[in-house]
């Protein structure tokens, strides 16, 4: 049980700066997910917290203590690796108890802790097996068990689910969440999968190019992204971005996305956007906010008709794709409302959820 803090941490590999001056405070018991595309520095950050990589500059604090020069074994952390890193020559019991045996815990206590962790993870029957005899999901559980028995200050997860198939991944995701609710240890979790990040995290840290783009709860990131990168990275399918221009329209504003289409800006946003009238901007709207006309109190001026290019039925919903100007736009519609490809369809853009991005600095206005 402890908090973790990073203060202006930098990691350089030869001439490449993998992590550029990041600062992050993780309070006790929080589940934080570092998410970002590959090469964004998230794993390096995690490995610096673990002590497997040395920070080139800045401070790493665990429980308020600076641990830059503390070797991993004395940091009292536990880590779950992407490929599990179980010791192949040891049984599950030996794997899980290894850390305790090295710390010379009494035998009875080791047995008690391992059995307790095994019960949490439902692997009691596997304790005498070797990793080779386990399936991917079982190995993943053992790797988590090895972390739990130590009862460490911090759990670190390095893309723990990326070696599992899709179905098992969803199952283990729930499992990890359940375990965290039970043991309540401060957790730092690295993944490139934004769905994993959104479902697991108390707070998500979105990283890109060695920097932190935004820190926030899943809801904050989804509804109030601060940069174009976060807006595009969070959410699946990704947010649509269309070049647009703000125009004054009587007392309000309207957003012109092409010669053909202009949408009224909701009154709640006019004051915020008024300084940007006339500028070239990027209009961002999630596919789930472009639908067939539905819902009460919608502005009929936000309805428009397009010819569909591609129609992808998903069962619960249907994705339809069309072009505005030169940009392909995706929309999520009710399956029964969807027209066929090549046919016209009436759609409604819910601008209450719109984002405007300044292309000059990629910041959301």
């Amino acid at each position: 049980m402890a908090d973790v803090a990073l203060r202006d941490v930098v990691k350089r590999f030869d001439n490449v700066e993998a992590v550029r001056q990041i600062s992050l405070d993780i309070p006790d018991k929080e589940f934080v997910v570092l998410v970002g595309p590959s090469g964004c520095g998230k794993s390096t950050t995690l490995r610096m917290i673990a002590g497997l990589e040395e920070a080139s500059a800045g401070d790493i604090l665990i429980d308020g203590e600076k641990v830059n020069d503390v070797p991993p074994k004395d940091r009292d952390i536990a880590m779950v690796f992407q490929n599990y890193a179980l010791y192949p020559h040891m049984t599950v019991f030996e794997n899980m108890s290894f850390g305790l045996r090295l710390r010379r815990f009494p035998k009875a206590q080791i047995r008690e802790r391992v059995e307790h962790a095994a019960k949490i993870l439902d692997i009691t029957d596997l304790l005498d097996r070797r990793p080779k005899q386990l399936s991917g999901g079982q190995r993943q559980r053992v790797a988590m068990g090895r972390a739990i028995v130590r009862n460490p200050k911090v759990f670190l997860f390095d893309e723990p689910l990326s070696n599992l198939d899709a179905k098992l991944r969803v199952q283990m995701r729930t499992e990890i969440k359940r375990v965290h609710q039970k043991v309540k240890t401060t957790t730092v979790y690295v993944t490139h999968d934004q769905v994993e990040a959104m479902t697991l995290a108390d707070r998500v840290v979105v990283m890109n190019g060695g920097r932190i783009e935004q820190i926030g709860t899943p809801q904050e990131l989804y509804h109030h992204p601060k940069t174009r990168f976060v807006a595009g990275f969070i959410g699946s399918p990704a947010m649509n971005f269309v070049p647009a221009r703000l125009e004054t329209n009587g007392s309000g504003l309207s957003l012109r996305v092409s010669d053909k289409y202009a949408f009224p800006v909701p009154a709640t946003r006019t004051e915020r956007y008024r300084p940007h009238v006339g500028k070239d901007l990027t209009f961002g709207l999630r596919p789930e906010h472009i639908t067939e006309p539905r819902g009460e109190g919608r502005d009929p001026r936000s309805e428009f008709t397009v010819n569909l290019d591609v129609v992808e039925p998903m069962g619960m919903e249907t994705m339809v794709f069309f072009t505005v100007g030169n940009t392909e736009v995706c929309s999520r519609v009710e399956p029964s409302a969807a027209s066929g490809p090549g046919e016209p369809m009436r759609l409604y853009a819910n601008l209450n959820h719109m984002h405007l991005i300044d292309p000059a600095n990629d910041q959301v206005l």
Partner: protein
Amino acid sequence: MVDVTHPLRSAAAPAAPAAKTGLNRLMRRRSSVAFLMCLPLIVIITSLVIYPAGYSMFLSTLNKAQTKFVGLDNFRFLLKRDVFLMVVWQSAIFAITAVLFKALIGLVTAHLVNNLPAKGQRKWRGMLLVPWVIPLALSTLSWWWLFDPTHSAFNYVIEAFGGEPIAWLGNPYWARFSVILVNVWYGAPFFLIMYLAALKSVPEQLYEAAKIDGANAWQQFIHVTLPMMRNIIAITVLFSLIVTFANFDIVQIMTAGGPRNMTHVFATYAFLLGIRSGDIPLGASVSLFMFPILAISAVFILRGVRKRGREIG
């Protein structure tokens, strides 16, 4: 699948001669193709290994003139001779100490080389392999020169520091030490290269997991490196034990078994009895004596290897 006969194809060519389809069918079976491909090697091994081995077994049951079958008399005779018992003892000392030191030195140097930066590593690996690459007879001659009673370079250094010169190959105990030393020098690079490969095959994440679990460098070695290398260690030790037990060149060139037969090993003693003294059946019996010792150790070691192979996989 190679071994499935296509029904349409065989129906379309009903007129093909029986012999040809028979050959076709034979060729279509994977196992027969595999056998045919192995055949050249099987022929070579049979003619160069199995036949001579069988023939030496046959020879060992004959009398000196090779005119009469004497059963196991040659072995009975050998077991009563003090010199032979000494040779058994010496062979064991020679092989076991040499293999032990080769393995130890190989393990330590493999770790050192493995920890070198990648750039210089290839150079060092190449240089350290040199003893193993130059023809053994030539390098042994150089060693023999280094140990030479009057021109010994070692003695020159010892005397320069005010020490007494040593009769490297004249004193039986120093002679034993010297032949073992040369054998270790020659054989350690083999262990080095095998262990280096084994070290590189241990996943880095196991060490990281061990570090986080709280293991220091020594504990990582004991709990991760050694268990992961146990199979390769077992196989190299077995292989080296066989080769070292059967070593001939080093002892023959350096001491030819002397002084007072105190450096003889099986091969040199067999050579002495069989070729030098002309008692070929007795020489064959000496060389056959290694066989049961090595066979038994091979069975035990390989059984352990298979068991661990199944567990770790």
